Every structure is written in structure tokens, then in C-alpha cells.
């Protein structure tokens, strides 16, 4: 199985070396492509010096557009599976083989790494307010799409060929994670979760502040409610 790891990165020159080293150590079988989303720092150079393919967007696309660039590349290069890992060091590449297993066994098209599954979950599980938001999104996705997930905002995902093709064609913009689950479900793809551990960011700030939370809430709710049926 040819696997492409997609690492979207916006001004992540400090976090990226650690992520790429960990990828090399725990997923040496995979090709790595860093989507440099119009960074103003040395993200692209750092990625290239660690041997990753760099997809350098000349202007900032936002996380959705950046992720889709990775999926377009995976589709064009004929990869069997794609894994998305954040460039900020939150996701541990140790869990990549576990995330690929359901794809290899042919029991899923989209695999989400969930920090709320498993016995000894532990690790970083975000603040109480965010967990409340996550519970709301779980409820909304179950109500509108009948899909049961525990960690809809997780950006740790593995996708098979069918999902790569779907996301290359249509991937949501702005805050795409929960909506991408709904998109997959409506296209008849199978979504499953595997337990993973996450860490807090090493450097820099999260992209969503307090005021942004309200916008996030409205935007994601509307995008899921207004999503058209299967194409």
C-alpha cells in the first residue's frame, strides 16, 4: 500500500522538524508531503531539507484549501492511502499504522484518530469548553447524518482511495474537520475511529481564539445543516 502523509503547515518552521523526524521514525514506509500554505517563515525550506515533498501555495488558502491540495496530489500520484497530520506537533505519528489498519482490512474509507476512545486515553484532551463544543458537534453529526463519532474536530485522519478522490473533488473550507465527516458519510463512505493520543502544541498559538469560537460554532453548524445530499 502506497501511503502519502499530508502535513498542512502555516508558519510552522519551529514545530515542523520534530514532526518530520517523528514521521521518518514511525512511518518510514510513507511518503511525506508538506503543504506550505503561504507561510512567511522558512516552512518550505525546513520541509525540503527534511526530504519532504513541498506543495507551496503562493497565497494562503486556509486549512481546507491546503488539505485539499494534499488530496489532489495524492490522487494525481495514485496513492492508495493518505494520512493527514497537523504540522504543529499535536499528532503522534506512532499511531499511523493503527489508523491505516481499517483501510488495509477494507472495513473503512475514512479513519479518524480520536482522543476520546480507548481505555488509557490520557494525553491532551483540550479544555472543558472545547469538549462541550465537541459533544455538540457529535450530536449534530449524528442527528443530521446518522454518523457516530467521538472526536469530530480531530485533524488526524487516514483515507483510502475512494475518500481521496472525493476530497480531491470537494473538500470543505475554513474549519473543515466536522464537515468533511458529513461529506464522506453522505457520499456513502464508511467512517470509523481509532484511539490516538494527542499532545498540546509545542510552539505558537491555536488558530481559534475566544471570539473565533462563536464564529466557528455558527459556521460549522450551518455548513453541516446546509450540506446537499449525495452527488
Amino acid at each position: 500500500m502506497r501511503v502519502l502523509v499530508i502535513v498542512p503547515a502555516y508558519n510552522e518552521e519551529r514545530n515542523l522538524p520534530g514532526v518530520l523526524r517523528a514521521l521518518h521514525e514511525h512511518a518510514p514506509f510513507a511518503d511525506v508531503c508538506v503543504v506550505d500554505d503561504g507561510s512567511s517563515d522558512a516552512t518550505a525550506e525546513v520541509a525540503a531539507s527534511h526530504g519532504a515533498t513541498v506543495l507551496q501555495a503562493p497565497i494562503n488558502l486556509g486549512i481546507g484549501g491546503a488539505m485539499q491540495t494534499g488530496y489532489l496530489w495524492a490522487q494525481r500520484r495514485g496513492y492508495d492511502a493518505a494520512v493527514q497530520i497537523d504540522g504543529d506537533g499535536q499528532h503522534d505519528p506512532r499511531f499511523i499504522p493503527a489508523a491505516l489498519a481499517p483501510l488495509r482490512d477494507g472495513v473503512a474509507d475514512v479513519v479518524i484518530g480520536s482522543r476520546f476512545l480507548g481505555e488509557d486515553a490520557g494525553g491532551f484532551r483540550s479544555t472543558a469548553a472545547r469538549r462541550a463544543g465537541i459533544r455538540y458537534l457529535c450530536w449534530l453529526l449524528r442527528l443530521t447524518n446518522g454518523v457516530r463519532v467521538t472526536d469530530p474536530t480531530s485533524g488526524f485522519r487516514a483515507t483510502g482511495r475512494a475518500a481521496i478522490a472525493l476530497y480531491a473533488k470537494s473538500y470543505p473550507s475554513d474549519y473543515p474537520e466536522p464537515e468533511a465527516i458529513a461529506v464522506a458519510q453522505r457520499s456513502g463512505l464508511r467512517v470509523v475511529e481509532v484511539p490516538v493520543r494527542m499532545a498540546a502544541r509545542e510552539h505558537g498559538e491555536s488558530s481559534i481564539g475566544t471570539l473565533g469560537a462563536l464564529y466557528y460554532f455558527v459556521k460549522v453548524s450551518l455548513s453541516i445543516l446546509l450540506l446537499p445530499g449525495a452527488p
Partner: protein
Amino acid sequence: MIPFRLQVAGVVVLLALLLWVLWLVRTGRVSLRESLSWVLSTVAAIVFTIHPELLAALAHALQIEVASNALFALAILYVLWNLMTLTIATSVNARKIRRLTQECAMLRAELEEQRAARSQSQPSPTGESS
């Protein structure tokens, strides 16, 4: 009824707007596609100005007591319609730009790959006098 001079002034202003839009299309600064909503709605506004009895009939049909209020309502609709057309055009453009940017990013990676492959297969021409 609209006083005659006001009517003339209205038609003149609207005609000027219409001619301006058509001139922008002619000189290639606005595409006909994007300007169509302006042309159509401005022609409609001119028709209402020349035949104010249409406006009175409309006000009567909608049970608007003062005909001028129907005019205000129409004017707001006119602006909203053109605004919405612009919003649609902006969204379409954003989608196209995103796709183009993604294509650029991929072509750049392809190019780097080709360059790397070439510099490996051939010794670099630096240092050679040609």
C-alpha cells in the same frame, strides 16, 4: 405622479448609469456577464420612471398607501439584487482562485522534481567553459 422635471432628471441619471456600464463593457473593464444584472435592472428602472403609472399600479396591488414608498422598496430591491449578483461572482472567483493556487503548488513541486532529476542525471554545467 412625478413632476415632469424630476422625471427627466431621473431618466437622465439612469441613462448615464446605463451608458457608463455599457462603456465599461465596451472598453473591456467589466465583462458583459457581470454587468448584465446592472443593465437589466437599470432598464427596468428607466421604464418605471417613464411610466410612473406602473409604479402606482404596483403600489395599489401591494396595498402600499404612498406610491413613493413602492419606489423606495423597488430601489432597495434594485440594490440588493445587484449586491447579491456581486456576492455570487465573488464566491465563484474565490473557488477558482483556490483551485488555481492548488494547481500552482503542484506544478511547482513537479518542476522541482524534474530539476532535481535532471541535475542528478547530468553533471551540472557550472565550471565548464562553453
